[in-house]
């Protein structure tokens, strides 16, 4: 068989499938090659997707996508050994379904849905095949891929391999991710049943909670924990910088269980049934991790592989940026194809499109955050101080307890002076 395709997309995750979806919409016949046994089978994320991007491109998605719950409550906790401080943000006004701006989902299922959408438009999704290499022709143009030992030719190749983008490394456009800007996420899916979840979290119907926390079992470690409510399940997990694993006494295989058994979380997931344990890497460098040239002769790089992922400190955004980059890649390929070209110069329009898009607007805005989040004070001292101060504020007995002296003592015992705090404040102002 000497078939040749318009476009071969390597990787059937959100970025790759979106690229195929938008390409097919433009009349191309893209082929997505996915190494997993079905689309989505290798995908892991925390649990939340933002609605705006789907509103733009997938009419009717609210009725058909595999949505677990609509996020109504946002929580952020600073957790200590025996107590925690939580900020709770709730939208009180009754919301119609199309007013929720984010929802929880299982990425494997969501990706499965995206795959169906892409196929409806005319893309071909081929799971169960691993791409090992990109074939370069004599002029150095990407002209095909080698999948499980067989060559498949194409005019354009889209690399949508995710965080471990071995092909980009082979092409020499990217080096191995750095430990300082890469984090390992581990996650557990726990079944509790819808009613039980609603009871424990004070929710109604299919409303959901997104809960982020620092401290607790992760005390002193740059990283955070998360909890999302799904339809019948709760997911919990931790995201920890790899450089931290190197430096500190921390065993990643145990983190998820330490998190689950921490009193702040255990009360929510008690008596559940553990369904799945998963792990995945994520980039945390923000703009620093973005591929300078996500294009080259005959190829483009999208999604996580290109570094389009954003850690806002509260949440990691990837799926919306992946979908957007897929749309822009399709745009760029379509333009190049009209001109009958596949050179790097022509395809560089992709980079310009990305720079003008929501992707760069956000990455630029948050460019100082990764540095700010390296501040050990946040993980080592802040939880204790917060718990000590509020612990005092909410304790009443015969003793006279004023908050201010406690705050001062607490700061002092952590070796924090006003100058350090002021610097931290300034940094925060620039980053968040």
């Amino acid at each position, binding site marked *: 068989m000497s078939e040749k395709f318009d476009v071969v997309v390597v990787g059937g995750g959100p970025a790759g499938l979106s690229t195929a979806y938008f390409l097919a919409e433009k009349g191309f016949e893209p082929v997505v090659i996915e*190494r*997993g*046994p*079905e689309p*989505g*089978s*290798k*995908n*892991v*994320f925390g649990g939340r997707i933002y609605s705006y991007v789907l509103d733009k491109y997938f009419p009717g998605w609210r009725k058909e996508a595999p949505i677990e719950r609509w996020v109504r409550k946002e929580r952020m906790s600073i957790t200590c050994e025996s107590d925690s401080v939580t900020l709770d943000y709730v939208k009180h006004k009754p919301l119609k379904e199309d007013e929720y701006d984010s929802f929880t989902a*299982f*990425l*494997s*299922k969501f*990706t499965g849905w995206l795959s169906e959408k892409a196929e409806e438009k005319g893309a071909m999704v081929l*799971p*169960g*095949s*691993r791409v*090992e290499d990109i074939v370069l022709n004599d002029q150095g143009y990407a002209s095909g891929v080698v999948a*499980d030992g067989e060559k498949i030719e194409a005019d354009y190749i889209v690399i949508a391999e995710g*965080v*471990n983008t*071995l092909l980009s490394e082979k092409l020499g456009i990217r080096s*191995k*991710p750095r*430990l300082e800007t*890469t984090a*390992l996420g*581990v996650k*557990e*899916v*726990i079944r509790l049943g819808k009613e039980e979840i609603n009871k424990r979290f004070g929710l109604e119907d299919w409303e959901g909670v997104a809960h982020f926390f620092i401290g607790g079992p992760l005390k002193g470690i740059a990283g955070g924990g998360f909890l999302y409510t799904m339809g019948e*399940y709760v*997911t919990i997990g931790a995201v920890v910088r*790899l450089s931290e*694993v*190197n430096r500190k006494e*921390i*065993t*990643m*295989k*145990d983190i*998820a*269980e*330490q998190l*689950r*058994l921490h009193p702040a979380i255990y009360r929510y*997931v008690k*008596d*559940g*049934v*553990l*369904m*799945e*344990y*998963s*792990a*995945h*890497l994520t980039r945390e460098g923000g703009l620093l991790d973005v591929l300078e040239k996500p294009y080259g002769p005959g190829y483009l790089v999208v999604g996580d592989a290109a570094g389009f992922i954003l850690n806002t400190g509260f949440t990691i955004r990837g799926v919306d940026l992946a979908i957007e980059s897929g749309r822009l890649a399709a745009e760029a390929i379509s333009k190049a194809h009209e001109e009958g070209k596949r050179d790097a110069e022509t395809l560089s329009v992709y980079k310009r499109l990305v720079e003008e898009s929501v992707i760069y607007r956000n990455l630029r805005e948050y460019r100082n955050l990764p540095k700010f989040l390296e501040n050990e004070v946040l993980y080592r001292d802040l939880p204790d101080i917060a718990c000590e101060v509020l612990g005092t504020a909410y304790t009443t007995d015969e003793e006279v307890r004023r908050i201010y002296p406690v705050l001062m003592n607490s700061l002092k015992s952590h070796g924090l002076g006003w100058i350090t705090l002021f610097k931290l404040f300034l940094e925060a102002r620039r980053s968040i």
Partner: protein
Amino acid sequence: MSSNMEEKPLSVEKRLTLTKFEIFEKPHIIVDTEKCSKCETKPCIKACPAGLYSLDENGKLVFVYEGCLECGTCRLICPYDAVSWSYPPGGHGVWYKFG
């Protein structure tokens, strides 16, 4: 197999039995344990979320690939480039049903 949780940590081995795998007969990750003998910190042992790296009785590094979550951590964290890392062949390896 019971996955009902109690108030004590479940071992990672136990948790891995809850995740679905299509194990391929050959390993997709090869560790050059010669290099590991020079490595003092062996961060892979702490970092692998599946706990697949351990030391045997003689202090030699042992790696098993069954149960690999394909996260790629060991590839990055190894200070001696001892980990030849690739994905399992098509259709194999971990199969997340939730993700």
